[in-house]
């Protein structure tokens, strides 16, 4: 048994054993008795109307239980508005629900659901459904939609204005000594977690249970309840293991409700798993986009003006763009700024959050332009960023709750060996390979939830504890770190604490999105566990039979499950003694946490710095990423082992974004060109260099009780820019598009 604090220790994941033995049951692994299988049929045209659905042949195929189309599926009760799931309300990914009428808005839109007794039979019957369409012209690419663009009032579920201004950007640009005007283009990206989205729906009378792969069980519960016109009290959602998400399971798409409707229709439990191909048309994506930056600086490289415009397609129903301009408007001191989102309606589903949603793309544009500026002025890229360092949040002039950015630059540069870099492009070689070094800054906002986050802690008389909160663990390590948080608050060894989550029957937690999970859940768990400890101490000092009777509760400390006087540790008793003596099998307390009002007076951001070394074959254009070093200041690190893994994963996502990941709409057919992992390339083992993660300590008393700023997304921010800047250093070519491919370097 250990007495050192559990928080901050690199303990192994508590669910590791389940995951390495095949004992972890994901949403598609549950097998209720008599389970049937549902398969979606997607529209083959991007725009138009369904003119007929011939289901005769499919119906006659063996094992078919039902074929649901807009002609026989019950209508939905209400369509909730699009609201990010962190808000804690119903959170549909788009304000369109399929199978309500014959109109086709995008390729892949569900037009039928086939249910059969086995998966093979459902798949076969789905292939026999004959749908005819009247196709109308479609718009799916930036090239097609550019001239129809408009500036929306707000994007991102209403949370981000379409236009933001400070100072006078025109005057600022006119007064600048140096100006850069650069346009960046981005292919669309897809999350592609290895677990496809899946829901298993089970009705018991009018009570619905959903096993759903989700970042928030309450988001699924509230959304499905609204769509089906059920009380949330009738819907329970379980999500014990989720096979990755990266944002595509952060909002609730049509399939959980369709699984529930199908199960009700056939009177049997139904599993609905999306196919890999359907993962490209059913759960959102990072939109294709174009960003233009006009930047003005003085001769010393200090920014005086920044204009940042983005153009991207959205769906016919929602004004959605990832907020690419946010962090890029906050990172540097710059008096004159204008940021504008322009959208056009296209035949796609509503795009959605994808890891570092907006920051990954916006910071690519800004940080490549900063590299360009450094190069043009002959200033070291790290030095240029230090000259533009902002002591306050430039958008509000509020102080930062904590930063660590300068330390990230320094420690990252040191670990990387940045001083060895000779500034001129093409000045490092290794045999035939051109070698390049690049860097970029990183930032990611600290988001707070809109409503209280709740947890419950229960201590048993044997001295073990269980803490509960509804959050699922989709690979973040939340189940592990929350045992550590609870252990310290209760004064127990972490091995004697267990975390239960992933169930709407437990105290409510908003969806763990936007890197907010660790901060808000640790706050709720800490609050509940600390309240339970205080309650037990209060009971002991009030108990005439306790050695602590009459003591000041503030003078009592707890270690290893034993309450004692801080100044006289011999005086005390264990939790177990207290409970046994009072015939208490267990004691329980709940806690809730909301961000403090004070936090609104601070800029809250996680900072970091990325460094990368690439090798380029000058004849073939082949790129090898040799190493990546990231220094991050994410506030308190609850568990360095799991935190490092998440940061490393984010950096490798930056590698994928920089060099591999791309999808394009075929403008004639209005559908994605890539639809599988064979043609949508994600990094594989051979693509991934060793990654070095440097953790910079910062204390933050503002963001939440434990000062946790989050590690889920910051690892990706700036990584693609560092790589592109390294490619420029290696080759002298400034590639302003993602991903960078061989052709760009030849």
């Amino acid at each position, binding site marked *: 048994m250990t007495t050192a604090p559990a928080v901050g220790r690199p303990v*192994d*994941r508590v*669910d*590791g*054993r*389940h*995951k*390495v*033995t*095949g*004992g*972890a*049951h*994901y949403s*598609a*692994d549950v*097998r209720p008795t008599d389970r049937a299988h549902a398969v979606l049929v997607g529209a083959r045209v991007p725009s138009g109307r369904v003119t007929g659905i011939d289901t005769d042949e499919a119906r006659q195929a063996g094992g078919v239980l039902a074929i649901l189309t807009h002609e026989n599926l019950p209508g939905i009760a209400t369509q909730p508005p699009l609201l990010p799931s962190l808000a804690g309300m119903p959170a549909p990914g788009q304000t369109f629900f399929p199978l309500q009428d014959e109109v086709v808005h995008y390729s892949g839109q569900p037009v039928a659901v086939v249910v059969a007794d*086995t*998966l*093979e039979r459902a798949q076969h019957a789905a292939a026999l459904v004959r749908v005819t369409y009247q196709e109308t012209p479609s718009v799916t690419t930036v090239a097609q939609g550019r001239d129809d663009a408009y500036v929306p009032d707000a994007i991102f579920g209403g949370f981000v204005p379409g236009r933001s201004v400070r100072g006078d950007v025109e005057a600022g640009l006119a007064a600048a000594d140096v100006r850069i005007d650069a346009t960046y283009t981005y292919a669309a990206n897809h*999350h*592609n*977690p*290895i*677990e*496809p989205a899946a829901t298993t729906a089970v009705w018991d009378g009018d009570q619905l249970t959903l096993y759903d792969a989700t970042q928030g069980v309450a988001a699924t519960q509230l959304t499905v309840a609204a769509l089906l016109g059920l009380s949330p009290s009738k819907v329970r959602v379980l999500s014990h*293991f*989720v*096979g*990755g998400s*990266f944002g595509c399971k952060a909002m609730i798409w049509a399939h959980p409700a369709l699984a529930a409707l199908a199960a009700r229709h056939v009177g049997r439990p139904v599993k609905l*798993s999306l*196919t*890999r191909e359907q993962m490209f048309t059913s759960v959102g994506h990072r939109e294709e986009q174009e960003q233009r930056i006009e930047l003005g600086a003085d001769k010393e490289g200090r920014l005086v003006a920044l204009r940042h415009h983005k153009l991207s397609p959205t769906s016919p129903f929602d004004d959605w763009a990832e907020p690419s301009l946010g962090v890029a408007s906050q990172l540097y001191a710059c008096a004159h700024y204008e940021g504008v989102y322009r959208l056009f309606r296209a035949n796609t589903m509503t795009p959605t959050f994808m890891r570092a949603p907006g920051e990954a793309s916006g910071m690519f544009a800004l940080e490549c332009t900063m590299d360009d500026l450094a190069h043009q002025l002959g200033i070291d890229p790290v030095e240029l960023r230090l000259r533009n360092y902002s002591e306050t949040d430039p958008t509000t002039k509020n102080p930062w709750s904590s930063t660590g950015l300068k330390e990230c630059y320094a420690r990252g540069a040191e670990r990387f060996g940045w001083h060895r870099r000779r500034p001129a492009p093409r000045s490092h070689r290794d045999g035939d390979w051109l070698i390049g070094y690049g860097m970029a800054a990183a930032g990611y906002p600290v988001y707070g939830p809109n409503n209280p986050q709740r947890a419950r802690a229960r201590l048993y008389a044997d001295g073990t504890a269980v803490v509960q909160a509804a959050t699922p663990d*989709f*690979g*973040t*390590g939340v189940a592990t770190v929350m045992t550590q948080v609870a252990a310290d608050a209760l004064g127990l060894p972490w091995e004697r604490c267990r975390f239960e989550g992933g169930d709407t029957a437990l105290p409510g937690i908003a969806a763990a999105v936007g890197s907010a999970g660790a901060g808000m859940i640790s706050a709720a768990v800490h609050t509940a566990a600390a309240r339970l400890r205080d309650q037990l101490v209060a009971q002991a000092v009030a108990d005439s039979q306790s050695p602590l009777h009459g003591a000041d509760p503030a003078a009592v400390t707890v270690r290893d499950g034993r309450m004692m006087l801080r100044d006289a540790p011999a005086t005390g008793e264990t939790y177990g003694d207290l409970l046994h003596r009072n015939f208490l099998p267990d004691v329980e307390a709940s806690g809730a946490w909301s961000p403090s009002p004070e936090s609104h007076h601070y800029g809250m951001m996680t900072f970091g710095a990325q460094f990368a070394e690439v090798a380029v074959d000058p004849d073939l254009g082949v790129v090898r990423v040799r190493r990546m070093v990231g220094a991050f200041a994410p506030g308190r690190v609850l568990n360095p*082992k*799991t935190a*490092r*893994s*998440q940061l*490393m*994963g984010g950096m*490798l*996502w930056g590698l994928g974004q920089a060099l591999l990941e791309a999808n394009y709409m075929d403008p004639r057919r209005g559908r994605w060109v890539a639809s*599988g*992992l*064979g043609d949508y390339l*994600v*990094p*594989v*083992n*051979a*693509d*991934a*260099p*060793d*990654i070095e993660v440097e953790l910079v300590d910062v204390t933050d008393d503002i963001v939440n009780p434990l000062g946790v700023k989050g590690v889920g997304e910051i690892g990706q921010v700036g990584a693609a820019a560092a790589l592109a800047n390294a490619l420029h250093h290696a080759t002298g070519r400034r590639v302003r598009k993602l991903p960078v491919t061989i052709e760009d370097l030849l």
Partner: protein
Amino acid sequence: MSAPDIPSRAPARAVLPERGPEPVRITLTVNGVDRAVEVEPRVSLLDALRERLDLTGAKKGCDQGTCGACTVWVDGRRVLACLTLAITCEGREVTTIEGLAEGDELHAMQSAFIEQDAFQCGYCTPGQIMSAVALLKEGHASDDREIAEWMSGNICRCAAYPHIRAAIRTVRDRA
């Protein structure tokens, strides 16, 4: 690139009578136990394991042979269970992640994956481990570069790759 060694010649087998398309009863030997199961000949080994034998350790990431999440062994060779028909595995030894530990005693590779934090969500992990153990047996783990090449058929979207290599190295060096 990462295909396992394919034996130069399959053992001679008797010509089997034509069966299907209706479900047929076959016996699969999975993790050393004979299991009778009714399957249509079109049923993949992966769906036979997951949907009929309650062995959900092997995962379906794509059903297209592109991700490696479904990796199991057939007669000791790693195969993609989503591209293998269950009926072709009659009379062969199928090993899944559930068959790797000896009772409560984890296989060294399983322990190494936990120690090195070689996963996050864990969805690719059964496939990674089945490949990793086979890789050592195949002799394809001499250095990191070789490990990386021969493990590149198993995608990890959480991108635990450097830690997966570390786990394989640890087991290799302990042996």
